[in-house]
């Protein structure tokens, strides 16, 4: 069942053990591994801290979990200045910054800021958006435009990240968005900016990063354009690899994508979205590392309007080799990327998603770790 979940009154998202299971069993191991990858073979003095982007929400549980696990380390001045986050409004950013001091917070609608039109985007010389304009008066609309463009520029400058946690906890597809949707276009931009050079690497780009992506299944009124897009990905996969049909039947009992779409929409969605992500990544010169492929965690949460399903996808991402700058225009993705794409597609059919339920959670000692994280938060923000 697909609903547009609004929380039950008094429900505290951060206390949800189902979600905490995903954090500790899904996110944390990959972040730990990323930290090791980042500094593998690097002399101790030159090792750098993990750069982390998140929609962490007010509680900042994910950041604090990584702090407790010593994956994210504060600076010598005791600040989380390699953590960048977006939150919906000034209030939320304010609250989050109290809990993870030194983290860099951006207020506003993520997709609106990312997709804001910047006429000087490709100019090498930075334009000073905040300088007083000579031909406009000091009014809200002028100031808003100045600040949005500056915010976007400042956000771009924080790229690239070693870990990106796009924990939307809402729908990837919005019925009112023009196709292919603001989130998809924002992801394109994000993955594009991930190719920016990193000063700590002598201006070299990253070789890879870890991506966590969260979405609800749905929305209930999802438009045909979005559904057809997902359908196309699945059909294309099935056509490209005949053995996938058998896997699909084993997994779902059907061989036909349209039947899957009509009768098992959640499964259709779960199979389609990772392929969408993999395609955007490929388009932006990355690919999903086939070593672990895309791990999917799923749980159902109650809401005032009925239960809804949350999907968490976690994956390691690798830069194509040779990179786009060293490939012919309009050429296919690199050979390694194409192979990995096929392997990852197969694994999505093969490997079942982790169904996180109360019984799954009961098998793991989660409450103590959540309490430990909250204790760390009180250290930074005792008034809470």
């Amino acid at each position, binding site marked *: 069942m697909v609903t547009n979940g609004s929380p039950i009154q008094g429900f505290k998202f951060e206390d949800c053990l189902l979600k905490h299971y995903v954090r500790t069993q899904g996110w944390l191991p990959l972040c730990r591994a990323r930290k090791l990858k980042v500094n593998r073979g690097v002399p101790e003095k030159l090792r750098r801290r993990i750069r982390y982007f998140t929609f962490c929400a007010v509680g900042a549980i994910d950041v604090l979990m990584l702090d407790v696990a010593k994956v994210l380390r504060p600076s010598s*001045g005791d*600040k989380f200045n390699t953590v960048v986050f977006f939150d919906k409004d000034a209030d939320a950013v304010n609250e989050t910054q109290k809990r993870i*001091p030194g983290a*860099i917070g951006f207020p506003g609608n993520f997709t609106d800021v990312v997709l804001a039109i910047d006429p000087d985007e490709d100019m090498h010389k930075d334009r000073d958006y905040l300088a007083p304009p000579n031909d406009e008066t000091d*009014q809200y609309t002028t*100031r808003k435009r*100045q600040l949005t463009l500056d*915010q976007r520029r*400042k956000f771009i400058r924080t790229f690239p990240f070693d870990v990106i946690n796009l924990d939307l906890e809402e729908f990837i597809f919005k019925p009112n968005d023009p196709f292919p949707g603001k989130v998809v276009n924002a992801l394109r931009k994000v993955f594009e900016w991930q190719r920016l050079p990193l000063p700590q690497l002598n201006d070299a780009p990253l070789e890879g990063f870890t991506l966590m992506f969260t979405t609800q299944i749905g929305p209930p009124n999802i438009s045909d354009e979005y559904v057809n897009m997902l359908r196309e990905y699945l059909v294309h996969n099935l056509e490209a690899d005949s053995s996938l049909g058998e896997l699909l039947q084993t997994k779902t009992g059907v061989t036909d994508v349209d039947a899957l779409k009509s009768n098992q929409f959640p499964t259709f969605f779960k199979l389609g979205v990772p392929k969408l992500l993999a395609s955007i990544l490929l388009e932006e010169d990355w690919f999903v590392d086939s070593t672990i492929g895309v791990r999917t965690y799923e749980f159902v949460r109650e809401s005032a309007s009925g239960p809804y399903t949350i999907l968490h996808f976690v994956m390691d991402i690798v830069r194509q080799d040779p990179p786009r700058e060293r490939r012919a225009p309009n050429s296919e993705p690199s050979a390694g990327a194409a192979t990995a794409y096929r392997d990852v597609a197969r694994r999505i059919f093969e490997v079942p998603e982790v169904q996180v339920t109360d019984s799954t959670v009961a098998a793991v000692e989660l409450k103590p770790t959540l309490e430990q994280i909250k204790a760390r938060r009180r250290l930074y923000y005792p*008034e809470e």
Partner: protein
Amino acid sequence: MPKILVHEKALAHLSRGLYRSPASALRELVSNGWDANATTARITTNYPNFFQLSVDDNGDGFSRNDFSRLMGGGIGNSDKRPQQRALINDRPVIGRLGIGMLGIAQICGAFTITSKMKDGTGFRARVNLYDLLKQKLDRDDPEVVTAKEVDVGTYEFDEKFDLSRAKRGTSIVADDVHPTFVRAFQQSLQAPKFKEPPRDWRKALEVFSSVHTIQELGDYWRLLWELSASCPIPYVSSTAVPNGLVRDEQEKLESYNFKVIVDGIELHKPVWLKGNPGGYTARPIPEERLTPYGNTVRFHGYIAVQEGIQLYPDELRGLLVRIKNVAIGYYDPSMLDYRYNEGPRSRWLTGEIFVTEGLEDALNIDRDSFNRFHPQFRAIQEYVHKVLQDDVFPAVYKQIDVRSNARAEVRRVARTDHLSKVLSSVTAERVAIKRAGSRKEVVVKKSSRGIDVSLPAEEQLPTKKTNRPLAAAILAIFELAMKESDPQRKREVFREALLELLAKW
């Protein structure tokens, strides 16, 4: 008799141009938290981007009705707190709620205020300040100027806000921060000596004292400095000023239990005098009560002089006057217009005057400066100048002599030792140098242990005082050289010894 009236437009102008720095406006909001019995006031600047600014406290909060009254004409009215009550921990009332709230209007066009009281009631409202207010006032724009009143903006309660989500206290979040402010603070991170501010205030104080002026660190550090100097918060320790001069004050400040935290950095007062090789001359200003025109002004404080070395940063130099623990302006390097030129010594001095009663009438409307001809201000000024002139600077001059003599003695011992080594080297015998009473001549004697050389008394050498030690040493070399029998050897010994002596003189 006709009355003299002030047009409300003047007050409206004030709402946009009252404070000289963002820190002054924020200080007013911190003071509101103090008066609301908060134990913590938190300022978040959205560092390093500065797209928003917030001040939160965990105090008593205030009601929707109080807010409406304040916005509906209570701003700047000293009766805005209907019932003045005692504050926790015997805190004195700073009592400025009102115009301070609009101080933030200098840096933003809109803000959201949320307040929740102990009983769980409260409100959230959005305050929108008019754009281009000054221009509208100047042309009597009917949007802001009506026949009866002048308004500076609008507010609207957020009726949908779930107050159970809010914590007790008051929170002001400014989001429409003016680009000029954002730009200035972003640029300040490029200041020549900017460093990432550490969360440990002691480490931050080390950064402050490493620069000549805070401007080298940029506006963000200046904000930290100004807030730390102006808020009623404790020192880093009770020994932050030598001779225990702030011990009592520290005890009192700690008993108030009030913290100010900026971007996770818990501020303390910016004074921390320690480790000066020349020591400190520190004088308490005991509790004093003066009554110019029958009005009582009561104060105490301290003056501390870092002997021989300029205080850094420059902003720590001078005297800071506090009323009820809140600084009025910043350290005044003129020492309240002290009339004597003390040369470099005035750059060694810092001090605080804590006014516990009176002087508020002498405040200018920005509450950042004084009417310097107000009788109460003049009374304090005269008292402090007398302390400086009769006590502090004479003691400093005495200390200069003491240090100067001590340095001369160290130098004398070193030179005597050097002379002994030089003479021992050229004669290949152990030469002991003695200083003998009032003798005019050098005396050289053979002894069982080597050669004893007695230098003439320096005051017996009729040359410039500074040249006398050298003259005595040269005469000693001369006399010792003269003991050689061979004329050529006499010349050699004198030449060799003289050059060696001068090499390290």
